[in-house]
């Protein structure tokens, strides 16, 4: 069996492992050397409460499920003459699709068709996987229990290996066309919403981050959905909270700079987004410090 065929199977397995824990995962996890198997609660905490494994959340300007990014991904399936599944942008599905296109490519005898399949696989890799998964996996590896942290490290590493096939001097279209953060002073509400949109802010801010912020800032934590929590933090001490967020942006800049060698324009894009976010946050914090809220 070819190495490439093996690598496609690896992606399929990595996709299966971010499904709810199942007895069939045990041998898969074992060959990957993953530590103690997770509980269902671990899975729920990570994938349902903290870091949702859907591309549209990271590639859509709203930072939410579906929307234009979801439509684009479903359109990609249709362009391949495939029926988009119900959750066509779920990480499991995208990795499975990647592996399937790869299998077809390897099995194809007609060189022209083979080339078309390869091109389709490269588009999927660049536009809908490398564009967000390395950053996502990085965050998972920092946050998750050991099983999923290791899973994320393997996933990120395997994708960076695949990236070597591509020319990444230009960013993927889905990133190149993405809108940035609204003005903090002119549209403060949209600005705050935009901070929670990875595509606009260059940051992935999950619930655990906001809990940490509450602790770091020693302010009260109001539990709710992310926007509610963030707004509550800002309401209590705007300047301090903005400074904390700017610091987060700085962390993301460094994370992305570490990836520039492997991901080229993709990492640069995310780093630039985080840089702009940091600048806006810092500027906004300065304004807030000059006119504190009563």
């Amino acid at each position, binding site marked *: 069996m070819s190495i490439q065929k*093996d690598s496609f*199977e690896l992606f399929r397995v990595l*996709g299966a492992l971010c499904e*709810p824990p199942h007895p069939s995962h045990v041998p898969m996890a074992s*060959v990957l050397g993953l530590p103690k198997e997770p509980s269902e609660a671990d899975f729920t905490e990570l994938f349902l409460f903290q870091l949702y494994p859907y591309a549209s959340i990271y590639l859509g300007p709203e930072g939410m499920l579906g929307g234009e990014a979801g439509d684009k991904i479903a359109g990609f399936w249709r362009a391949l003459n495939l*029926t988009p599944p119900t959750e066509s942008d*779920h990480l499991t599905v995208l990795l499975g699709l990647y592996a399937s296109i790869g299998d077809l490519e390897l099995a194809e005898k007609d060189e022209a068709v083979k080339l078309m399949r390869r091109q389709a696989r490269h588009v999927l890799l660049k536009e809908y996987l490398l564009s967000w998964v390395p950053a996502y996996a990085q965050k998972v590896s920092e946050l998750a229990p050991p099983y999923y942290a290791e899973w994320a490290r393997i996933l990120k*590493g395997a994708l960076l290996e695949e990236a070597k096939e591509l020319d990444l001097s230009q960013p993927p279209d889905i990133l190149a066309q993405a809108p940035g953060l609204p003005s903090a002073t002119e549209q403060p509400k949209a600005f705050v919403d935009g901070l929670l949109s990875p595509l606009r802010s260059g940051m992935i801010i999950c619930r655990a981050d906001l809990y940490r912020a509450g602790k770091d800032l020693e302010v009260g934590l109001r539990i709710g959905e992310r926007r509610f929590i963030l707004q509550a933090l800002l309401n209590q001490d705007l300047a301090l909270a903005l400074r904390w967020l700017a610091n987060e942006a700085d962390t993301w800049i460094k994370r992305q700079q570490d990836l520039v060698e492997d991901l080229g324009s993709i990492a640069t894009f995310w780093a630039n987004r985080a840089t702009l976010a940091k600048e806006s946050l810092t500027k906004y914090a300065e304004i807030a410090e000059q006119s504190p809220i009563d």
Partner: protein
Amino acid sequence: MNKNFKELAQRVSALREDTLSRGETFYPGPSRINLASFPPIERWDDWVELDSRQWPKRVESHYMLVPTTCFNCESACGLLAYVNKETLQVKKFEGNPEHPGSRGRNCAKGPATINQITDPDRILYPLKRVGKRGEGKWVRTTWDEALDNIAATIRRTIEEKRQDEIICHIGRPGEDGFTERVLGSWGVDGHNSHTNVCSSGGRTGYQFWTGIDRPSPDYANAKVILNISSHLETGHYFNPHAQRIMDAKQNGAKLIVLDTRLSNTATHADYWLSTYPGSEAAVMLSIANYLIQNDLYNKEYVQRWWNWQEYLEAERPDLENTFENFEKALKELYVEYSFEYAAKEAGIEASVIAEVAEVVSSAGTRLSTHNWRSAAASNLGGWQVSRTLFLLNALMGAVATEGGFYPNAWNKFVPRPIHATPHPHVWNNISWPIEFPLAQNELSFLMPHLMKENRGHLEVYFNRVYNPVWTNPDGFSWIEMLTDETKVGTYVCLTPTWNESAFFADYVLPMGHASERHDTFSYEQYNGQWLGFRQPVLRAAREKLGEKITDTRQVNPGEVWEENEFWIDLSWRIDPDGSMGIRQYHESKKNPGTKLSIDEYYSWMFENSVPGLPEHAASQGLTPFEYMRKYGVFQIQAGMGQPNENGVHESELKDLSEGPFGRIYSGTPAPLSPNIAPVATPDPDPQGRRALGVKIGDSIKRGFPTPSGRLEFYSSTLANWGWKEYAIPTYIKSHVHKQELEQDQMVLLSTFRLPTQIHTRSANSKWLDEISHTNPVMIHPQDANPRGISSGDLVRVETEIGYYVGKALVTEGIHPGVAACSHHFGRWKTNQDEGQNQMMRTVGLDKQGDAWSLKPLHDVHAYNSSDPDTLRIWWNDVGVHQNLTFPVHPDPISGMHCWHQAVRVRKADPGDKFSDIYVDTKKAHEVYQKWMEKTRSATKVSPDGNRRPYWLQRPLKPPREIYALPKAEPVG
């Protein structure tokens, strides 16, 4: 790749291969990668579910999951029976995810199999009539008594050379070809399918084009889907088609539906054309004309595969035989079929047809079309509907292409069985009357009228999973025939459940449902070939637990049997010592002189006749038979390519001759194919060489199984057998064409089905009955208002031979001038204590001379039984049995019963009761005679002294000499 990742990837691949080689699932569970939420196959032997009735306690139930196949509609979707390991009872049925056709997705009828097998009213033991036929008096008898008695009668009949007095009338097909082979082994030409009340019209159109009589569209990959049909795609039938249409739609395919009624399929259409009944061929020809006049058709394909040269020679000797001249002639042929003409015939707007034509023209070779029953089964000349529909595929070159139309035999696999039985050396004149030399199938629905004319007598009449009194038109004439013991000697009804015909039988013999019998079959569902296995699931489960089961009755409820064992046993009793030459076809090969067991029968088939199965099974350490017991299905091939373009093996290219227009014949014997799916058999050359292929350019291609080897735009068969005017696809005006109707008449559309019932056999499925149990008469407001009819009113629907009383439903979902009333309902019984209680009302039958009436006596109501749910029956309206009031309308070419009726619909009389029926069977016979006048008897039109063109398909095919016309037309 980095070494670490490389190693990881290799370990993952090795793990998967190892898992799959054990026959286990690698990606099971709620995965988004593979089929979700189905139990993985390695856990089928011990699947654990919590018992919902024990809630809130968590009590585990352990199940063995055993695959089988649905026995409701024909499409044979995979089922998975959940057999409780403690009680050895089936708990439920779900889809079989391993089935490549149904893919684990079933319609409502599949899971409702549990209702059928637990039906408190089902027949559990062999019954024998006491008293007069139809009197409703029965005694339980033994299988031995019944078999010995029936066998003795058959033996005597065969010995006295009265083979044509034995007929087996088939409803739901079981195993492909099994019953035909049994009859063949007896030397009896007694196969009598129901097809002429079902799909003959559609089949005929396809057969004349391709030599194969069923359509198999590759819906999933289509760009444009055009259906003249509703119930297949609605899910009454062929759910695997319905799900692939939805796949195609999600990929952006356009769906065009011609349906007079707003069917479920029509509601999903991009274009719904509510055409006037019978006008469909005119609409197809207008689309064809558009493609032709605007040069939008695939000229290369037409030139390569149509028999245009034959057409020019026969019809246009004035023109030099060139393709350019054919194109010119083609432009003239359909010029009268403008959009405006079609619109006038169909009662719809010309602009809509024009838009649809443009969509069709955009399909390229990804045009999927389908017609099965619907218009082809309802109109005089309905067979031209499928023929003109296929014309569009033939014009676009969308034949055996991805997303196009496949002839079904290329998507079907019928394995060669252990014994090759001969075809009978007799001709049955009741099934194949001489007036219908081109009939697609047996004229079974005419039997009462042919018998009335003393054209035959039946010593033994079987019907199996069929209910002619209810299903066929003119049921009272059937009752007259079945109750006349001078016409029918012994009537044996093989049925899983009570029905209107069984009440008139001498023996009622209980046969199993989907999970209680063996069969193999293969149906067109997608571009591929698969073989499905139906099995008695408790037999498979108990064998797995170590028991030895030798007879399916050991595991079935009561003494319910399966047909395969029944026929083998009966054949042995007909010929106990083998002297009649019958027994040899039902003997073991391993132990000659002993009875063939089911295990040996299927083991031989799976080992010897299913390519790839032995190897695949062996890779999992299983025998082929064990594999089929475990999975219930095997995919033989996916993606069939273009079989007509296949070359011919070198070994066959010997002793060749070339006929007109490149037809190639070979003197070599035909290689034995393991696949015996039925196709036509083109005639040999004058020296007896078999038709091998057709010359295309410089090479010999396999071609189509037609006389010319090509797609037959021009049918020399029709031209030579007395129907020259229909030698090419054209439009035949229906018997319900507007010009045929009186001012106050309407068309009654009676053939449509509902997705939640299947003929009359699902009437013992309580879940389905609760969903669908009645059949209102749909009528458009434009027709209802002048008649003073409102929804819920009782209406009389008057046919040529009588009337029925139905309930009106005023709706715009039907074409003006047309009334519609669905199939399935109006079930009845004459004795309150027998039959089925959930859907059969008790009625009184009365006969005064030729005048019959049916009056309701007791409605359906809740009742006490072994099933507590029968106390919860809330419905009492079970519809009206309209088919009783329909006379027979045999199409003179296809033999199809033309179902549409010219009727008058008016408010019911004050004394009328819902579901009242009145019929005059003398008038029914007069209508029969009127339609027989349309026929052209083989005695007058046969060009070669035969009764029928030999190349046409026939389920049992006597040798050529038996085809010779009798010296005088059989009468008396």
